């Protein structure tokens, strides 16, 4: 069957994988990468690793995290409500949001409610939603099959809008899709080192997956692909735009020679790229890869509304990120 990027993104957005609970995402990715990899395995941290054997001299790790932001049940109220804590989520986007609660007895539906305007007062109208006051209404499940520690994910459906694709968890499954594209394109190429495509776990809580993967694989270099804020005016920062190609990051986390190599590959292959200055930690898997003493690089797909129930990404940026990656991996002379 012909590859369809939108179909892959839809599948990836619809499955749930909060940090440390990425099983359903692994399953989708496994089915996509297995035909193109020599070995696909899961490690102790929950990373899914697709290995593609090359010339065997050097090893390159490509990390794209597959977990997503969410919430965790902190209290079960007997009246049919749950209190929750956030995992990377803005509580302000929660009111009137449907959620899925991952219980031992399967996935249950819930609703984050907010008092109707009629019942608000001058004081309560001034309050932004926060996790001290937010609650999930689960009164449709009178047997309350919930426990403290159950994970909660956002229930939103992806959509195609113009040239963009919008949905939950595209941070960072858009990058997972770019890795899949690169793997497929490498089928037509033969000149590359040993490759480890790591679909990493637990990035949103501190890149624990990438940490384990870089230790066990010990690559010669590591590339993290993640999303960055696009179409937003950030003070003192050049504007990254959706649809203008992947952003190459530069800063302490980036090995300068790698940055230059990516620039050269992009230019040679006619791939439009943007540059993003990252003067400190990158907030990506690269931070952990570099701590292992491995030269690292960060490529970012521009995204608007990050960590929202609906995140927005330009389809061409994913395709071009995949192509840039495939070109780099087969043209790198190490």
């Amino acid at each position, binding site marked *: 069957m012909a590859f369809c990027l939108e179909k892959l993104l839809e599948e990836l957005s619809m499955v749930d994988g909060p940090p440390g609970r990425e099983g359903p995402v692994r399953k989708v990715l496994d089915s996509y990468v297995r035909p193109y990899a020599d070995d696909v395995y899961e490690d102790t941290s929950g990373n899914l690793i697709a290995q593609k054997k090359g010339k065997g001299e050097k090893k390159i790790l490509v990390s794209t995290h597959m977990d997503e932001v969410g919430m965790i049940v902190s209290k079960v*109220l007997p*009246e049919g*409500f749950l*209190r929750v804590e956030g995992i*990377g*989520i*803005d509580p*302000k*986007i929660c*009111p*009137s*949001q*449907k959620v899925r609660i991952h219980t031992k007895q399967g996935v249950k*539906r819930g*609703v984050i*409610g*907010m*008092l*109707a*305007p*009629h*019942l*608000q007062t001058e004081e*309560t*109208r*001034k*309050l*932004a*939603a*926060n996790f001290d*006051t937010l*609650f999930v*209404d689960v*009164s*449709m*499940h*009178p047997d309350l099959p919930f426990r403290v520690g159950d994970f909660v994910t956002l229930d*939103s*459906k992806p*959509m*195609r*809008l*113009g*040239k*963009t694709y*919008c949905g939950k968890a595209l941070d960072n499954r858009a990058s997972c899709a770019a890795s899949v594209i690169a793997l497929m394109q490498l089928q037509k190429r033969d000149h590359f080192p040993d490759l480890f495509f790591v679909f990493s776990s637990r990035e949103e809580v501190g890149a624990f997956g990438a940490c384990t993967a870089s230790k066990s694989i010990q690559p010669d270099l590591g590339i993290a692909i993640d999303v960055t*804020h696009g*179409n*937003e005016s*950030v003070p003192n920062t050049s504007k990254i735009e959706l*649809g203008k190609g992947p952003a190459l990051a530069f800063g302490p986390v980036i090995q300068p020679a790698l940055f230059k190599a990516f620039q050269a590959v992009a230019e040679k292959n006619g791939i439009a790229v943007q540059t993003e200055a990252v003067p400190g930690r990158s*907030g990506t898997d690269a931070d952990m890869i570099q701590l292992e003493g491995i030269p690292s690089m960060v490529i970012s797909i521009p995204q*608007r*509304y*990050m*960590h*929202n*129930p*609906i995140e*927005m990404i330009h389809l061409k940026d994913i395709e071009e990120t995949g192509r840039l990656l495939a070109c780099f991996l087969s043209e790198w002379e190490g």
Partner: protein
Amino acid sequence: MMKWLKELCALHGASGNEHPVKAFIRSKLADRSDAVYEDGIGNLVLLRKGAGKSAKRLMLLAHMDEVGLMVTNIEEDGRLAVMPVGGVDPRVLLGKPVVIGEGEIPGFIGYQAIHLQKNTLTVPPEWKDIRVEAGFTKKEQAAEKIPIGTYIHFHTEYEEFENRIVAKALDDRGGCSILMDLFEDLPAVDYDIYFGFVVQEEVGLRGSGAAAKLVCPDVALVFETTTAGDNPELSPARWSTHLDQGVALSYLQGGYALDSRIFELLVDTASRNRIPYQCKGRTVGGTDATRLAKTMYGIPSGGLNIPGRYIHAPVSMISKSDYQSAVDLARRVIAEGKIVQIMEGSL
């Protein structure tokens, strides 16, 4: 029961844009009506004649409109600025999917990523912060497809649970659905019953007066989905109604004291027939009963309400058993027929 509720909630009919709801109801009930009336503001009234011995007229009302948004400006970057149609709290909008205009163009309300918020982390969004994203990148591009004044509706999948309905627009498609259920299985009575599906309740009770003038009813019953508030945000003492405790009867609302004879009749009928009911504990929120009291000779009316959590938001919730109590009580009241004699009793 609830034969049409799912389809009713899926329709998009913000105040002033009720025609899809009206067309649906008309298509289901008009051929079984003894008369069908539409008026200039957009109301739909269906008559079911009684056996003819009585000249009395009972009018049942529910409003077809829902709260929503309207495009009020298009930004240079192609995003849509909006204002509310009816009472909408901007805090329930962030990250929610919507459909835009008659063509139901998909979109959503995007909000700045948490990482980029500096001074706004604990500040609630205002209307100036609400932007609808529809995939356009330029103002002209968006303006071509989406003129200023386009209606925007919430896009929420209807879900049914054992004793819960979760949907948008339950206020007041719940009331419309009750009227349709009553129409389907109406007790045989002597007097005439008018089913009023009215417009523009959410923007100031603007439709019901005209509809009542068409009918000149002796008495009216208004079916609403009302506030609940029985969630952790309020102490039980401040709840408006409580889900699963039955149909909510209102005696005073939004500054109007409903007809005490009708209120007592509803309470008495519910008690005698062991139909679960509760009295609405808060007086917030107006209904068309208030408009009826200001119409013609001051049409006396009663209010039967389905308690609804989180109404006026993309996701609201009712209890199926409460809905059933409202239907049961209405059927008993209609069958017993004392309601149309109410003018003859003293206040």
